[in-house]
């Protein structure tokens, strides 16, 4: 098993933390993982992206040019990464704020209205968790138990009361695919 994932959007949308939870969940499922952020000043409001690799074998490069799966949260990232999805791969995106929809037909394009979902849930901070749920479901990755344990590792203990809310958002995301 090997899944090469790019998550890309605006800084502040929870791109890096979504990747972190995914990486920790991979760790919980005894996989090899790498988490490579495109770090820099662009994290402050500009575009941010993170490459996460989950594999049952040792991982060579943490830096990639082709991805099995892309999770896209804004137009700039769609423009940049649509062509970088491997043929037969998966592109998950939130149509909110997207004015030029993906055009490729050789990949599995999955629109997920995560922004609408969080408005329904009443907590916009769980936006990235809805998309994470969609990713887990679309790619059949990792157990929910591993993701919850990953969340516990990522969140400081004072925020652990928010885990049920995040779990709800992940389930919501799963149901949208």
């Amino acid at each position, binding site marked *: 098993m090997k899944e090469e994932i790019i998550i890309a959007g605006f800084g502040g949308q929870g791109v890096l933390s979504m990747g*972190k939870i995914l990486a920790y969940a991979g760790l919980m499922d005894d996989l*090899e993982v790498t988490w490579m952020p495109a770090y820099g000043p662009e994290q402050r409001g500009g575009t941010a992206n993170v490459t996460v690799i989950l594999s049952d074998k040792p991982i*060579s*490069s*943490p*830096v*990639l040019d*082709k991805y099995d799966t892309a999770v896209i949260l804004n137009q700039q990232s769609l423009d940049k990464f649509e062509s970088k999805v491997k043929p037969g791969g998966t592109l998950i995106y939130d149509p909110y704020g997207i004015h030029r929809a993906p055009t490729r037909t050789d990949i599995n394009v999955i629109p997920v209205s995560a922004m609408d979902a969080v408005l329904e849930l009443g907590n916009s901070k769980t936006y990235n968790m809805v998309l994470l749920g969609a990713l887990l479901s679309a790619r059949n990755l990792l157990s929910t138990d591993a993701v919850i344990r990953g969340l516990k590792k990522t969140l400081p203990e004072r925020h652990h009361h928010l885990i049920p809310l995040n779990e709800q958002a992940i389930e919501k995301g799963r149901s949208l695919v």
Partner: protein
Amino acid sequence: MEEIRLMKGNEAIAHAAIRFGMDGYFGYPITPQSEVLETLEEQMPWDTTGMVVLQAESEVAAINMVYGGAAAGKAVMTSSSSPGISLKMEGISYLAGAELPALIVNAMRGGPGLGTIQPSQADYFQATKGGGHGDYRLIVLSPATVQEMTDFVGLGMELAFKYRNPVMMLADGIVGQMMEKVVLPDFRPRRTEEEVREQCPWAACGKHGRKQRNVITSLEMEPEKMEANNIRFQEKYKAIEENEVRYSEFMTDDAEYLIVAFGSVARICQKAIEEMREQGVKVGLFRPITLWPFPTKQIAELGKKVKGILTVELNAGQMIEDVRLAVDGGVPVRHFGRMGGIVPNPGEIEEALKAHFMK
């Protein structure tokens, strides 16, 4: 039981330092390695092991605090990124001249000048050929994984004390900022004052019954004495070259072409090689782990078996000079690099190798 953790290379360095029994860390924050100091401050080792963690007023102050700690026989380190390492260079030359053990970590970023905060390997010359003034050498370790960032803290300190010589861990923004699995070493107690006196009879930590005081200095007023010091240094460097070369190889046995790369870039090259191998292109990877001493003999041997060598570096071509010296004109050596904080992807490396050798 060994504990598997997920952390950034920079965080791993901090945990490894505490667990090694480091006596002191002196630093000044700079991206992309600020997490070293931040993690140490979060961990508060002064309450547990007694390790000193100090944010100095500048890089220059930090390296001179390292000098002071090392002169007293303590296990001390500092870390910074390229512009900060340039500021430390005077102190590093003094450490080498006074034969003091210390660990200096450089998480390289794009330069010259203040440059960018993204990954680079443009400080290869500075680390391996000098940087500071005088005829000195640093032992230079190049980590490619978060695990090596961890392990090279202990290895670096051991080599530093074995040879009484400063050691540099030449990392970069990729391996500093990325997270992956790591097994942390067990906790080792810091050395007691008695152990320091016993293991470092040269240290300036009080006479304790000795008649002569120990003097730590890089200054000699008589050139004859300074030359004698230099001869002693050169003998030490020769011993290091004979005993401490480290490297790793990937699919070199049947390779027709060889990529030589160090640090995190070697991993991107490995991915390119995995992809080219699927197409039947016989490429192998040689990764120097010690950049000084450089694995000259090993590259010379491999050079006899291959049709061409490509060095891939995040610079305009620095290590390529050592690779060319190693093969001594026996085989064409070409360079591919990105600069200023841009990191090449596996596809670009594949294209570069094919463009140079398979047209």
